[in-house]
């Protein structure tokens, strides 16, 4: 708003006036445009007031009076500032206030973030080494089956596509060309099969975990999973070996290899990472399926039945647990080590890096924690991790029937774990799915022993037992097989020349032994409807 006239006026005003206006504007502290307007207005006022003064002394005296009349420049500046602020449009006032509130919030967050940013974690534990010691459990390397399995994978020849497309077939279904293809491929994979057999004879199995970088979550699972597809391929190679031997009449060798395959699967269970254990469950299930098939397709001699039963009973007896979650905790322990300080007494406070690990599914809690900076400390975090996995263990140990019969609120495991991080929950498979798989393999083991026991009974007595207690009384079975979907023994019924053995299945109902159906309409085990029939085999 200044023009040439105004500049000239300002220059002609006494110094006291200029100084007064300057002090007033400094006290006013406002936008430059507004200050310029006020300056111009006051300058022109003083100019008008002093226009009549012809002499300097007169002008100076008059100026003094005017300045006194205006009053304290500080107070005047404050009053003018307030008044000018009121002139702002409503939207501008709202925006300014909003920005002020935002600024205060940002300042608050910044100040409260200082503890998150100050301090360093103490990486005192090498959790890769911790994990390796956990899985090895002090055993000698000679007891480890893993080198054999790794070698077997190296020696394993890729399955011909034609065989891969006929996975449900048996060698006796093939024509001459197919049989030759199978024979040649199995001959090429002989080394792999032999190594698998050697590995199965070992007492234990453990992996040697490693990471290429310092963060477990980046590489540990990836490195561990590299071998798993090879294991899967190896298992299918062994399956073809078993089938060929069975079809060739070499039932004893087929059973022996099936037991080795089952051992291979069980080696991967009850320790190590969850993904490895789940692969182990799948391999063992594959092996058991082959044993069931051999029992149904071929007339197995008593001595083979006896030998198979004893080997399986011994193998199953050595391993009660199927799934162990101890190794899974390694990720969280390492994350806690990197995300919290260490006060040397087992506790510490959260650092910025640990924030993703403390976000829970409860939005209200998360918002409150952020606003109040009330994050769990190291001890609380460790306790929550332990509680979460303890709850997971409870679910795994409860049968599906018991889980179903729990009151609805008790089924919600998460309620009991207050601050379990959302990442923890999203990075672990569904409780119930893992539990179901666990109980399937446990049931398979019992069922296999029961079926073999019944077949042995029949071989000895010429008929099947009237009920399962008959097997126990005759000494062919030690305990009744539990149906995890009824919490009662599996249902056994003798038929004319056979028997039926089944579980209620996931629908928890006794459908009278009517098998569930798969998508293709064929009988299938472990479907949502119908019973899971173990014997006779589905599809027969």
């Amino acid at each position, binding site marked *: *708003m200044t023009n040439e006239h105004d500049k000239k006026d300002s220059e002609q005003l006494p110094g006291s006036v200029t100084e007064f206006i300057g002090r007033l504007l400094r006290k006013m502290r406002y936008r430059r445009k507004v200050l310029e307007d006020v300056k*111009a*207005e006051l300058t*022109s*006022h003083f100019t008008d007031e002093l226009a009549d003064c012809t002499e300097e002394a007169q002008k100076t005296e008059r100026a003094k009076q005017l300045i006194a*009349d205006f*009053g304290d420049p500080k107070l005047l500046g404050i009053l*003018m500032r307030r*008044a000018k602020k009121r002139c702002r449009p409503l939207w501008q006032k709202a925006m300014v206030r909003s920005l002020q509130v935002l600024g205060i919030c940002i300042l608050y967050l910044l100040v409260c973030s200082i503890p998150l940013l100050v301090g360093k974690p103490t990486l005192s534990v090498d959790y890769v080494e911790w994990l390796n010691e956990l899985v090895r459990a002090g055993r000698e390397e000679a007891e480890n089956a893993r080198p054999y399995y790794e070698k077997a994978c190296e020696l394993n020849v890729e399955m011909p596509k034609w065989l891969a497309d006929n996975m449900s077939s048996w060698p006796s279904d093939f024509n001459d060309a197919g049989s030759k293809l199978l024979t040649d491929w199995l001959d090429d994979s002989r080394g792999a099969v032999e190594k698998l057999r050697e590995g199965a004879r070992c007492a234990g199995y453990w992996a040697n975990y490693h990471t290429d970088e310092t963060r477990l979550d980046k590489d540990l699972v990836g490195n561990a999973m590299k071998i798993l597809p090879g294991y899967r391929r190896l298992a299918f190679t062994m399956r073809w070996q078993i089938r060929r031997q069975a079809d060739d009449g070499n039932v004893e060798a087929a059973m022996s290899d099936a037991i080795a395959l089952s051992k291979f699967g069980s080696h991967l269970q009850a320790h190590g990472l969850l993904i490895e254990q789940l692969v182990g469950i799948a391999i063992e299930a594959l092996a058991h399926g082959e044993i069931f098939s051999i029992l149904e397709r071929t007339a197995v001699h008593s001595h083979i039945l006896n030998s198979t039963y004893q080997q399986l009973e011994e193998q199953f007896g050595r391993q009660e647990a199927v799934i162990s979650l101890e190794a899974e905790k390694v990720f969280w322990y390492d994350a806690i080590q990197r995300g919290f300080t260490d006060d040397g007494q087992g506790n510490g406070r959260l650092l910025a890096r640990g924030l993703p690990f403390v976000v829970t599914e409860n939005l209200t809690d998360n918002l409150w924690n952020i606003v109040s900076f009330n994050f769990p400390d190291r001890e609380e975090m460790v306790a929550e991790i332990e509680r979460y996995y303890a709850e997971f263990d409870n679910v795994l140990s409860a049968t599906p029937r018991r889980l179903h019969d729990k009151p609805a609120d008790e089924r919600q495991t998460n309620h009991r774990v207050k601050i379990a991080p959302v990442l923890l929950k999203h990075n672990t498979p569904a409780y119930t799915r893992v539990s179901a798989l666990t109980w399937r393999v446990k049931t398979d083991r019992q069922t296999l022993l029961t079926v073999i026991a019944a077949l042995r009974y029949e071989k000895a007595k010429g008929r099947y037992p009237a009920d399962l207690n008959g097997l126990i009384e005759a000494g062919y079975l030690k305990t009744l097989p539990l149906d995890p979907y009824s919490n009662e023994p599996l249902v056994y019924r003798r038929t004319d020349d056979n028997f039926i053995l089944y579980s209620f299945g996931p629908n928890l109902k006794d459908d009278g032994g009517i098998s569930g159906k798969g998508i293709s309409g064929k009988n299938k085990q472990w479907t949502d409807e119908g019973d899971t029939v173990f014997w006779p085999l589905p599809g027969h």
Partner: protein
Amino acid sequence: MKFESQLLKGIAPAVVLEILSGGQMYGYELSRAIEQRSGDILTLGKGTLYPLLYNLEAKKLVKGKWEKNQSARKRRYYSITGKGKAELAKQKVQLKEMTAGLNLLFGGALAPA
């Protein structure tokens, strides 16, 4: 005449609005007009005038804008708005009633000689 600041404080907005109802004026002009039209009885302190004008502007009772006068000098002229006219009318009624009441209270001693 110098009045008690609290006495003048209440009527200052009405005084300014009344002067501006006669036409737009800039600050100095307004200050002189108040003195002249009140027969030098009322004097609005300079420290009161401009904050008052800015407050009235904030309340949208007056509107200010820069204009050049004949001497090509820029001045900020203030003019009364419609809302200001309504407010002035309201305050006039109140002042009239207050004057009547005070007159009665002081037994007619407040009436002009």
